[in-house]
């Protein structure tokens, strides 16, 4: 009986409606604006799946209007087939960008549907629980903690995080804060003085917390090769957890040069998408830690394929999560299933202040770790208020 019920639940179904959810312009929640777009897939079984991408809205919704007719009448549980069909459709006119991010959002919504139809949390469909709980670091960037920015209060921030068991932090000393060497030369040059001054927050955290705090650095892809080499060299004495995106990832040989020259693990890049691009990266030994964004790289399916391929190179995965709440949930499910997991990004300002405005059950790090929800699908428990008060509006894009 149970088997028959389950089979009926995941039996043939059809996508009957595609919706976009947009968020009110100028909506600010504790100083943060939701910068993501949701995609909702409705089916003839009544099941609804939600996907997401970011950071723009108009291009996404425009692209969704172009793609949505391809989805109507299709079985959302045919996950790889639909991905391939849409990818081939959009891969002629240089693929990527907004329509690729919508393919990504659609893929996430399909996994949400498959999970709900089968009664399983998504991680169980991706290989099961490889990680009981996920180690996280906290990204600072433009997201202060209770008003404290990384450059002004590095010691206090470290203390705040360590008290919560979060023992890793990601900093942006080269393109933010008082030094901001990038702003001075546009990423083409860095002086000896700037190299030294940029170390300030790192030295202060080391002084206050010793090696208890792991430090990752994000260079936002703003530098050329010689600057990247100089920056890496100046960081060598500080036991850096990883150096992320010093250059644009469009020349992997340049990255291979950097990776050979420095002992700091090189991490890239959420700017890349599809297993096809990541394959090149692995083959050219350009990287020690792989990072992707589940809402940019092609979705949950593609993320899992990329990690599985990375595993054959002994390369672990560190998912990028600095976007919307569906990204946060989808990354937790994906990472839970990975055997080659490293550490996952988390942003206090987002999971503490922004996501709870939209969701009731936001996973929050406990003792420096998060765990996946055990409810079917992605396990998103949406709040109704944003849909009632106009913070979120639903727009029908295509319908059978």
């Amino acid at each position, binding site marked *: 009986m149970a088997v028959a019920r389950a089979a009926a639940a995941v039996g043939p179904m059809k996508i009957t409606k595609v919706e976009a959810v947009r968020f009110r312009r100028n909506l600010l929640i504790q100083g943060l604006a939701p910068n993501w777009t949701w995609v909702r897939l409705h089916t003839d079984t009544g099941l609804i799946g939600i996907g997401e991408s970011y950071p723009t809205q*108009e291009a996404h919704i425009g692209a969704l209007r*172009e793609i949505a007719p391809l989805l109507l009448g299709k079985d959302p549980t045919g996950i790889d087939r639909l991905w391939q069909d849409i990818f081939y459709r959009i891969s002629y006119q*240089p*693929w990527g*960008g907004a329509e690729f991010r919508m393919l990504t959002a659609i893929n996430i919504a399909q996994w949400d549907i498959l999970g709900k139809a089968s009664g399983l949390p998504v991680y169980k469909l991706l290989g099961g629980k490889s990680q009981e709980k996920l180690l996280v670091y906290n990204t600072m960037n433009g997201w202060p903690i209770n008003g404290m920015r990384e450059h002004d209060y590095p010691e206090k921030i470290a203390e705040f995080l360590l008290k919560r068991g979060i023992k890793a932090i990601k900093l942006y000393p080269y393109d933010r804060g008082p030094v901001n060497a990038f702003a001075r030369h546009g990423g083409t040059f860095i002086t000896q003085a700037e190299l030294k001054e940029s170390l300030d927050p790192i030295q202060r955290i080391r002084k206050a917390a010793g090696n208890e705090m792991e430090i990752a650095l994000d260079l936002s*892809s703003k530098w050329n090769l010689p600057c990247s080499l100089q920056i890496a060299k100046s960081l060598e004495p500080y036991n850096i957890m990883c150096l992320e995106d010093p250059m644009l990832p469009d020349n992997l040989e340049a990255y291979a040069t950097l990776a050979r020259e420095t002992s700091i693990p090189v991490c890239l890049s959420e*700017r890349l998408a599809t297993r096809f691009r990541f394959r090149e990266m692995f083959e050219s030994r350009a990287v020690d830690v792989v990072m992707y964004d589940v809402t940019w790289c092609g979705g949950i399916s593609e993320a899992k394929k990329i990690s599985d391929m990375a595993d054959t190179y002994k390369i672990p995965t560190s998912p990028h999560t600095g976007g919307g709440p569906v990204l946060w949930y989808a990354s937790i499910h994906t990472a839970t299933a990975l055997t080659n997991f490293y550490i996952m990004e988390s942003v206090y300002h987002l999971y503490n202040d922004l996501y709870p405005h939209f969701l009731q059950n936001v996973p929050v790090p406990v003792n420096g770790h998060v765990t996946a929800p055990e409810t079917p699908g992605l396990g998103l428990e949406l709040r109704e208020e944003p849909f009632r008060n106009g913070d979120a509006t639903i727009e029908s894009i295509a319908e059978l």
Partner: protein
Amino acid sequence: MHNAPLTRRNFLLASGAAILGGAALPDAMRAAMDNTEALKITRVEAVTFRKDLKIGGGSGGSDGAEFCWVRLHTDKGITGIGETYPFHQGEIGALRDYAPTLLRRDPRDIDGIWRAFYHRMAMRNAGGADMRILSAVNMAQLDILGKTSGLPLYRLLGGRTRSRIRVYNTTTDYWAINEMKMGSDTLKITRFLLDRGITAMKIYPFRANDNYISNQALEQGMRWIRDIRDSVGTDMDICVDCWGVFDFPSAQRIAKALEPYNIMYLEDAMLMNNARAYAQLAAETSVPICMSETFATRYEYREFLESRACDVVMYDLTWCGGPSEAKKISDMADSYLIPTSPHTCGGPLLYFCSVHLCAALPNFLIMESNYWKYAHQYPYFVNNVPVPEKGHVSPPELPGIGAEIKPEIFRTGDAIVETVAAA
């Protein structure tokens, strides 16, 4: 002539009203403005076309405008126009996202705007609608640079390296020549082209339901090629395009079957995402391998050039990052002794810009053209479409892109103008 900016400026001021009116002043009469003064983008517009447009002319099914335009207005009254395709909703959405960053910028800062745009997009996988709209914006910027300097676009891209540009005809059922179809009308089509001096054609002979090509499908495709060779010998050059659908073994079998027939090139035989697989194909076959208008930016082409994955470079300048990026890609290809064969099966401005670019490229092979498009579709929108004569086209000698867009398309409701951002 360039030493008289004041005169020209006075002329501009005197004709200010006409210039603000847009198309009222013929482009040929536009003169160089004083380029020492700042120029600012004041408004960004999107132009789309009526969905039910029926152009006709025996197209066999594709009757409308699959392209969209971007117009940049400046505080000096000069406007520039750019184009991309084949969708418009994602592109115009992307324009809505990005246009505010263009306002008040000097449109002549071409590489700087491109770089900032690219870095913002590359943050999340550069390409798609975002890259296509960047391409259109870049084209519009170059159009403005041409108009402000009084120079046709090809003179800004290195000047003339040839006066006549050889074209081939892309032959498909949906952009057909007078309803003729390959297979049943192969010889009639071949003769029609040769009679007009067009001595090269691109065909799509290989069909498969999946990524594998059966022996029967391979044989059926080869029949088109034998028919052409048997009837006109080597008078007609043949390019074969596969739309990127086949797997590696199928691509190898296709290349091998084509070897005895002096094929000009085999284009996009596999999905274009593995340079090594293409390098292996290129190493194993004597058929020149061409790729691919599905790439964007010099960064992406570099890898394929470095790994010797192709013998001919193809790009679409409304997709690859715009005319300025296309020129950089060709210049890089030249250092590998690889020639360029631009893709032009989009809108009229793509065609005009490609003609300008080909006039300037030292490493040019042959340019795509399509009879239905230049005979029926483009003239619906533009007056002075370069139509092949004896199989060759030449760029217009007008400032900028030099396309004389018909003013009536804006009155009839065929073209719909929407302001996306204004200062």
